């Protein structure tokens, strides 16, 4: 984005909660929404004499994330203490990584744009302060010590929209790998944004501000938009930007200064003496790499290039790994894998199945209609065994009862009539019983043909192939002429 002769430089620091059974340095459950202070122990409440023991699963998750983001995994990384006093931090230091993070130098592709990732490091989360009454604050240590991965981008994002895109892509990759739910509303993904402006064409970075307290992708976008306008105004009036941390206020739609650079913490980082260097063997890295599924970008490319789907459909199908897996599974079961049939399948999934699930407010579920059932249904339609219209009715029954389309067709006798003689017999019947309409048709009123088709469909309970009926009616009436 550039206006007023400035261009925008944005860097994002994203924290994601890692999905693990237990916390980062103790064996308390890593759970949300429990009664306050029910998942705590001497270690995560910072009692005297306790020691941290790193969670192997969290390390694996962090390495998996690093690899999925194209990072180099450091075979040896170092935990460090980041020191500051706050009641939600029981030890008054956070175990994090500073000089040697677990992962470095990755990237995310946004179309053809490459946004580089500086580093990703492991750390423990703090607790939650609850300001209960006027002069009382409470603290819940359930979240204390849960594993976090901080992913830092290079300052290469050039607009609030691109920032949101980056976050969406990042979320998708991490969700595909089962690393995190990445739900900003629920706090399993948090984002701080550094933003500065510089004269167009200048190589030097301007003074940046750090934005905090955005609770959705939309909020990140809005906060950045506001902050860019604010900085433009300051610079436009000949002023200077102060390096500071600013808090986004969602209700007011503004940012306000929280602390300046001078008030910034000196975190007094030093290597955590209670933990040895974190060593990951090359073999382990390989096995983690092998466990990474095909990522959304690759799947989108495959759908577009190999399958001929539209970019839009490819996007919808890959929004979640479960949907894409479902599509791939159903696709593999299609008898006729013509591109036309595959497109039909994509359509039935994106429009009918997702539409229905969305209407019910439920997330994607593959158990309502299994991939083989879906493939079977599309197969019948593709082969002309049933019409699209019948397909929808059958889909409804499948959705509600979990039965296969074949069963529905057999039970209800819903099979499409494609037998020429049978159709011809019904058409004759209809022509003979509707002389008035036939007359009108003969006089050249083509529009009434639809009435005759409708009557045939009625007599066949909708099972006759409409195209065949149409042709047969014309043929029969033509001969009589």
């Amino acid at each position, binding site marked *: 984005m550039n206006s007023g002769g400035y261009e925008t430089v944005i860097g994002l620091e994203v924290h994601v909660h890692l999905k693990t059974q237990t916390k980062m340095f103790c064996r308390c459950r890593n759970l949300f929404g429990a009664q306050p202070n029910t998942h705590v122990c001497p270690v995560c409440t910072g009692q005297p004499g306790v*020691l*941290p023991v790193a969670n192997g699963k969290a390390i694996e998750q962090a390495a998996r994330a690093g690899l999925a983001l194209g990072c180099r995994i450091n075979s040896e990384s170092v935990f460090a203490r980041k020191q500051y006093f706050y009641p939600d931090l*029981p030890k008054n230091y956070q175990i994090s990584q500073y000089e040697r993070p677990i992962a470095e130098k990755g990237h995310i592709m946004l179309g053809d744009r490459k946004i580089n990732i500086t580093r990703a490091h492991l750390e423990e989360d703090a607790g939650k302060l609850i300001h209960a009454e006027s002069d009382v604050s409470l603290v819940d240590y359930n979240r204390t010590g849960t594993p976090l991965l901080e992913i830092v981008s290079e300052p290469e994002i050039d607009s609030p929209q691109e920032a949101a895109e980056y976050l969406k892509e990042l979320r998708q990759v991490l969700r595909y790998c089962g690393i995190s739910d990445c739900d900003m509303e629920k706090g399993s993904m948090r984002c701080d944004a550094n933003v500065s402006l510089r004269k167009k064409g200048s190589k030097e970075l301007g003074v940046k501000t750090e934005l905090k307290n955005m609770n959705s992708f939309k909020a990140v976008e809005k906060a950045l938009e506001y902050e860019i306008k604010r900085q433009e105004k300051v610079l436009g009036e000949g002023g200077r930007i102060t390096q500071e941390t600013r808090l986004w206020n969602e209700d007011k739609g503004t940012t306000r200064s929280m602390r300046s650079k001078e008030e910034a913490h000196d975190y007094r*980082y*030093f290597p955590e003496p*209670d933990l040895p260097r974190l060593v990951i063997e090359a073999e382990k890295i390989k096995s983690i790499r092998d466990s990474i599924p095909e990522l959304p970008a690759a799947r989108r490319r495959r759908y577009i290039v190999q399958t001929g789907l539209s970019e839009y459909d490819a996007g919808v199908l890959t929004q979640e790994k479960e949907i894409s897996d479902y599509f791939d599974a159903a696709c593999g079961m299609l008898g006729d894998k013509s591109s036309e049939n595959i497109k039909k399948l994509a359509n039935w999934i994106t429009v009918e199945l997702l539409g229905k699930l969305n209407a019910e407010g439920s997330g994607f579920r593959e158990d309502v209609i299994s991939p083989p059932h879906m493939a079977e249904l599309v197969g019948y339609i593709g082969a002309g065994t049933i019409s699209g219209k019948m397909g929808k009715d059958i889909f409804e029954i499948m959705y509600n009862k979990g039965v296969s389309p074949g069963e529905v067709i057999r039970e209800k006798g819903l099979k499409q009539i494609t037998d020429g003689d049978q159709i011809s017999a019904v058409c004759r019947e209809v022509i003979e019983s509707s002389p008035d309409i036939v007359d009108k048709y003969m006089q050249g009123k083509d529009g009434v043909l639809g009435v005759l088709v409708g009557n045939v469909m009625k007599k066949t309970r909708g099972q006759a192939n409409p195209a065949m009926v149409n042709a047969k009616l014309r043929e029969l009436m033509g001969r009589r002429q």
Partner: protein
Amino acid sequence: MNIKDTVSKIKSGKQSCRELLDEYIPVILDGQEKLNTYITLLLDSAKERAESLDARIAAGDSSGDLLGIPVAIKDNMMLSGTRTTCGSKILENYISPYTATAVGKLIDAGAVIVGKTNMDEFAMGSSGETSFFGPARNPNDPDRIPGGSSSGSAACVADSQVMGSLGSDTGGSIRQPAAMCGVVGMKPTYGYVSRYGLVAFASSLDQIGPFASNVEDAARIFTVIAGFDEKDSTSIAPGESDFVRWVHEKGMKLKIGIPREYMGGGLSGEIHNRIADTARRLERSGFEIKDISLPLTKYAVAAYYIVAPAEASANLARYDGVKYGYRTPSPDDLLEEYKVSRQEGFGDEVKRRIMIGTYALSSGYYDAYYLKAQRVRRLMERDFQEAFGDVDIILSPTSPTTAFKLGEKTQDPLQMYLSDIYTISCNLVGLPGINVPVGKDSAGLPIGAQLIAPWRCDGKLLYAARQVEKIYE
């Protein structure tokens, strides 16, 4: 009588655990009154414990290498349900919510814990005088300090109140008071004894170890508490399960080195002569004595007083009055709550070290202080490796002086720090070291010899210690 014979007596039914404890209780009470050895006495629970052990024995189970043995632990070790003060006002009423691994191992071996011993506040001190609960005194002369920081753990063994105790050693806090009280005190290889449940002073230097009246008992207690602990990521498996056998080892030849840097200026003449005498007698017993050099010794105190306070400044940050421990009664706001609680809860020496450590880790100073000190540690490691290429064991004085008078050095922290000049290197490098009493000076005060062994050679250390002990029997 040593631990082994006492345990046999109990196992054979000649004496019950309770009877044994009852012999010790008057000594403990008397010693506590004269020497202020304990911060918390646990005599009621000790009696119950002794009785329950007796019941167990009656039921046919008389297992445990320390069955019925009365012991004490330094008050910086967690024992569930008991107070753990660390000698500080800030933890005056803190009740341990769990038990330290090493303490749990003592209990599993059948030991009876009679109390939690006095100590310098957060183990910061070399005389026991920084304790919020008043100083412990030296049984050899109650007007003198027992050494520190494990002041009570050394004094209670020297005073025969218990058969053994646990201390912790960050820069000499086991060996130096052992020397001043005239008992055996061992600092194992870093990692051999779990630190889980030991209130941290300086994490990369702290190590738990035993005090006992003789080398064999020390080896027995050490055997019980040593071992890998999955709760301590810095712990290592010793690779052997019986260190007592080293004490009975015979005929093993050793080349013993005496570093000239440990025998120079600042060392009392009497101690110098006694260590030289020890060396001569060892030579006569057939051991080779060699003059060696550890040239980096002169940097040890400086490096130590960067690393230890730096780690301490972070380790002690948790004492803020928010979750537990002392909180100032009515602070105006959060910042004041932090500042005043810590100001009122910590003593001067602790505050001094937190200040030094905070400074050393501050942005702009980190490289010049902390990083450089860590580099010195690695160089010192090489220094020792070279020395141990030449000799099997190092012999030196444990402390430059014998026990000094209470109050003599409290106004001069630097003089106090020099009290650990010979013991600090072991901690910086992670080596095992031990103090063995080698008689007394002309004033009747104990003199200690320190032995240092290569990394993970704790068995050899105990063997050498036994050879020195024999000389003065």
